[in-house]
């Protein structure tokens, strides 16, 4: 039996977990597992939400990728620039070719703020370590006025995050005595404040109770950083003093440049088997895919288990029938030391429980225990 080459592209939640699970299910005689990561650093992105409010600094949410991988997984740190799905190899920036029998694409999502004219000078966000620190500095200086929070495009990572940010901000401003001097407006591109209807019905009354205004069907067209306004495709213009806008997201450039993605660079992925729709030996996990689920570590976590079972089963000659059913489990901070929980799949929408301190602490616990529990596959 020849040793199968499994290459995992990307060392985020999904990629790291797939690699570790495969290493646990296959021997070195059955497969050689190689993970390629651009920077060799694993980042727990949910931690960025707390940075603007003076939470732990971004370094606290980073670990070396090597320290999280099982010893039998080879790690290559470098830029992968192209995938040849026919000849089955990944080409690195230095020209090296890494051959594969199976490829798992876990390249995540890329931010493209430049897709919105005026974004660079006019808006803040918390979707990278640097941006979250900049927003922290801006909030520290803020002394009242109009804060506008929104989403430039769908899909984007961690769908509840901008709502969580809004609730945490409202709470923070109240504590600082600035709430009465601040108008908060939330912009949503669709006809409700959140994509999932049941969550929207849950969140909207909370926003109303706290005097948070919202503008629906607001699809950002441009920002005017001089006059401090944001305008929509629908013809609405809103003034702001501080604008927090989740930038447009796109798939990784390697996907588009290898001809493997759709127009936005997302990987066309079978919603249950997680195989690429054209190349069954290529799998997609997490944010890189076009799956109709949250772009979140939570979704990637469930998907990784299915992919590892399916690849390992095939190599061992015992094909796995395991399928991904759209499972996601995450928390939504609602401010005032409380949170709720969202548990759902393709056929069962979430029914968020009443916000409580319990879910807030559970989220805080997960944030701390993540390193020990998730990339290792313990849970």
């Amino acid at each position, binding site marked *: 039996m020849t040793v199968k080459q499994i290459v995992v592209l990307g060392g985020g939640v999904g990629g790291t977990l797939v690699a570790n699970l495969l290493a646990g299910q296959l021997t070195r005689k059955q497969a050689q597992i190689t993970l390629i990561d651009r920077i060799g650093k694993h980042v727990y992105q949910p931690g960025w939400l707390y940075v603007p409010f003076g939470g732990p600094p971004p370094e606290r949410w980073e670990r070396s990728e090597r320290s999280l991988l099982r010893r039998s997984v080879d790690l290559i740190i470098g830029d992968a620039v192209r995938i040849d799905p026919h000849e089955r190899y990944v080409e690195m920036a230095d020209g090296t070719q890494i051959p594969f029998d199976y490829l798992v694409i876990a390249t995540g999502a890329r931010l493209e703020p430049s897709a919105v004219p005026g974004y660079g000078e006019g808006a803040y966000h918390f979707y990278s370590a640097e941006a979250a620190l900049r927003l922290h500095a801006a909030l520290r200086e803020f002394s009242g006025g109009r804060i506008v929070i929104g989403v430039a495009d769908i899909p984007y990572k961690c769908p509840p995050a901008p709502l969580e940010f809004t609730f945490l901000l409202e709470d923070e401003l109240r504590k600082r005595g600035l709430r009465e001097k601040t108008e908060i407006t939330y912009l949503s591109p*669709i*006809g409700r404040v959140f*994509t999932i209807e049941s969550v929207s019905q849950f969140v909207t009354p909370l926003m109303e109770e706290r005097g948070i205004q919202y503008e629906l*069907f607001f699809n950002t067209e441009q920002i005017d950083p001089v006059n401090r306004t944001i305008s929509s*495709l*629908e*013809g609405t213009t809103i003034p702001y003093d501080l604008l927090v806008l989740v930038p447009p997201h796109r798939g990784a450039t390697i996907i588009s440049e290898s001809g493997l993605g759709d127009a936005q660079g997302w990987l066309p992925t079978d919603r249950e088997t997680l195989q690429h729709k054209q190349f069954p030996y290529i799998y997609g996990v997490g944010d890189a895919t076009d799956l*109709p689920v949250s772009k979140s570590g939570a979704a990637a976590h469930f998907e990784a288990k299915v992919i590892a079972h399916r690849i390992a089963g095939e190599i061992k000659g015992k094909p796995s029938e395991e399928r991904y059913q759209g499972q996601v489990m995450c928390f939504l901070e609602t401010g005032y030391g409380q949170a709720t929980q969202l548990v759902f799949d393709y056929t069962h929408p979430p029914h968020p429980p009443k916000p409580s301190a319990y879910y807030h602490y559970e989220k805080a616990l997960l944030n701390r225990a993540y390193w020990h529990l998730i990339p290792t596959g313990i849970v």
Partner: protein
Amino acid sequence: MTSPNVVIDKEIDARGSHCPGPMMELIRGIKSVPVGSVVAVLSSDPGSAKDIPIWVQKAGHEFIGAFPEQGFTRFVVRKMR
């Protein structure tokens, strides 16, 4: 009327995409064509019947109609501005 009596300039197949997927696809489609063009989006999501006409009205475009087919609906919109 079961089919639109207009020439469709751009048609987007968003079948299998869940709410608000088809509406966002329509918005992307509208952004990419000149004023006066007719854009159609195919949706199998029941939520589109509510979302798409409201968005079209809010955005100031013309809603030509929703045309049911086998297992999906074709929503046809003219870009007005």
